[in-house]
């Protein structure tokens, strides 16, 4: 009885990653949407793999698709990274120039751009993470299905892939943060909370909403899985749960 219930719950939750991934993709920047893992397709392939028939066509297809997915990630990631490097440096230059002339309008513009750049970079890191998670999951399914050993060595190699080595991007993100801090020194705490609601309505929707969605998805993905095991992550703990709550933007502003 319990086993049946567990299976039921598992099936229910088994859908979850796929659905969540789909939602994440929908919320993501338009140019990014076809760059994510084709989890559904991979799952279909895994289902096609028969447990008895050795080295079926489906298995070869699976691996082939995996390989090409990783190619896709790498290419996209490295490309974006390059752009971010360029933009970041450009903004730094502009800041230097503006500091000299103290053109207030420009300052504000730079600030916005910098925040958006920051956002996009974080989203790239998120992209990397989401795809990694998907890969890990699908490999687990595959191994389960074939009784195979694909997962471990494959994942090990994934860890070395360009799209997973996000150190540079993370560093750029932190650079952005410190630059922003120096550009816009901390406002008083009181003023901060008061202005928050208004601010919520005003922020640049595109990047911001994606970031919020990413956070929410991350939290939900980690809430719990029936196949919880040694390779699962603990639930997400956000120090500031209120923040996220207040950010569930009600306004149906369409993502462009």
């Amino acid at each position, binding site marked *: 009885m319990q086993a049946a219930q567990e299976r039921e719950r598992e099936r229910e939750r088994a859908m979850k990653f796929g659905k969540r991934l789909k939602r994440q993709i929908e919320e993501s920047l338009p140019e990014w949407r076809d760059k994510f893992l084709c989890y559904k397709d991979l799952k279909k392939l895994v289902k096609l793999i028969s447990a008895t028939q050795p080295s079926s066509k489906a298995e070869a297809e699976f691996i082939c698709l995996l390989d090409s997915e990783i190619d896709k990630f790498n290419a996209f990631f490295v490309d974006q990274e390059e752009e971010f490097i360029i933009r970041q440096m450009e903004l730094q230059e502009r800041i230097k120039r503006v500091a000299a002339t103290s053109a207030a309008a420009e300052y504000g513009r730079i600030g916005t751009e910098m925040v958006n750049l*920051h956002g996009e970079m974080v989203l790239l890191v998120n992209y990397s993470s989401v795809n990694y998670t998907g890969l890990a999951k699908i490999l687990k399914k595959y191994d389960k299905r074939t009784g195979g050993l694909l997962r471990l060595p494959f994942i090990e190699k994934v860890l070395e892939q360009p799209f997973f080595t996000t150190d540079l991007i993370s560093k*750029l993100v932190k650079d952005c943060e410190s630059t922003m801090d120096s550009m816009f020194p901390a406002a008083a705490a009181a003023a901060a909370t008061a202005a928050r609601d208004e601010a919520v309505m005003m922020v640049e929707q595109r990047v911001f909403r994606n970031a919020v969605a990413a956070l929410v998805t991350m939290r939900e993905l980690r809430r719990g899985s029936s196949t919880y095991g040694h390779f699962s992550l603990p639930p997400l703990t956000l120090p500031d749960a209120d923040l996220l709550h207040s950010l569930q933007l009600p306004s149906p502003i369409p993502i462009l």
Partner: protein
Amino acid sequence: METHSALPVGNLNMQQFCNSGSSGVMSSSLPVLPNTLEEKFPELPDPQHVPLEREIQRNPLPSRRPLFSSPSGFSPDLSFSSTLAHERHTNNTPFVSRSLNAGVSLPSTYLSNMEIFQVPNNFPKDPTEITWCPDSVQSMLNCSDGVIMGNNQIQNSSNKVSNDLHKQNEWWSDIMNVDWKDLFDDTTISESQPKVVCPPAQSSSNISMQQPQTDQSVPCHSGEVCAVTGASSSATTAAAKPRMRWTPELHECFINAVNQLGGSEKATPKGVLNIMKVEGLTIYHVKSHLQKYRTARYKPDSLEGMSEKTATQSEELPSLDLKTGIDFTEALRLQMEVQKRLHEQLEIQRNLQLRIEEQGKYLQMMFEKQYKSTMDKTHCSSTVEKPTTISSDQTHSTAKIDLPEARNSSTDSKITEGFRQVSNKWKMSEVEPSNEKETDALTSSLPPSKHSRINDEDS
């Protein structure tokens, strides 16, 4: 079903590549060049291509192995398939363990030496297009020999290959210096994947060395190109699937060069390339980078120009409705906060994932050790014990696939203990009060049930 053994499969694949024209691959001779380049440039990673590619992938599949077109030194996709095959077959045992070992340990070494990875397979798998010529097949075979021979042989084979490559590269760099403007216009180039060859011998600059060479005074030297050769066969030449990975240092070097030439409008890719003098950097890389650079500069600049007229009126920004300076700053701060938060969580998550994998590896090692010692003791492979209760992929990860999964029960308990510790760690970190504050009623009921399940698993 086909029996796999490392080398013959390699051969087979080469043939098939020759015939079917695989994607990630390389041609080492000039005549082929224009075709491959042409085919690449119009290849934008757009959604239309992706499904198409997938279809094409499915069809000629039986004859294809993504082997050497696979990314980043997933060279032994070959050994994966052998692995799979050997789940079910018992012949070719020596190959299996050999190739599996090679397959598992190899690629990482190989990768760290060569940083091989490729551009996506967005290329039309046109059966008529032949990107191979027999020479490259030969060199690939040589390479695959090297790949299979084992870690310590890597250097030898890579040297051998790199010699061949070097010659090809010299030839290639001559060609590269010619301006290919006639073949394609600049706009497509910016979108295309930069191609290039980086002879493995030289490509000691790994991705890990991105940050690295902090020699600021001579930026160009520090910005060595990250290797870029295709898949397992370092025989990748010009057809230049390979991607460049830019770093801030390299970019600074680029900027210096551009400024020397009088600015982004005046600078030419060739000029920049010559000034930068970075090994492995090709004109294509520079071209596309220059394009990106120009876009980044002139978009904001034009905005600046326009708004300078209206600057006196207000601080109007495209996406923000500015009322007061404070509101605006607050909006920025808020967005920044959320993003920062997301990033922190991502970093934490990533570290966890890495640790999990490490743990997995460690446990597997333990398995193998125990297993080996068991095997030594008992002297034969026919000791069949009860299968373990460990509920993860660890169950399957043994070194010798062709032997039945036999383990000592004492070994089991030791390893199970290890798992218990891991899952206990997770249990403890799960119990976080802040989680309870989540208003999602549905999910709040999950943790308890999850805990109970874990207990079941462990017992």
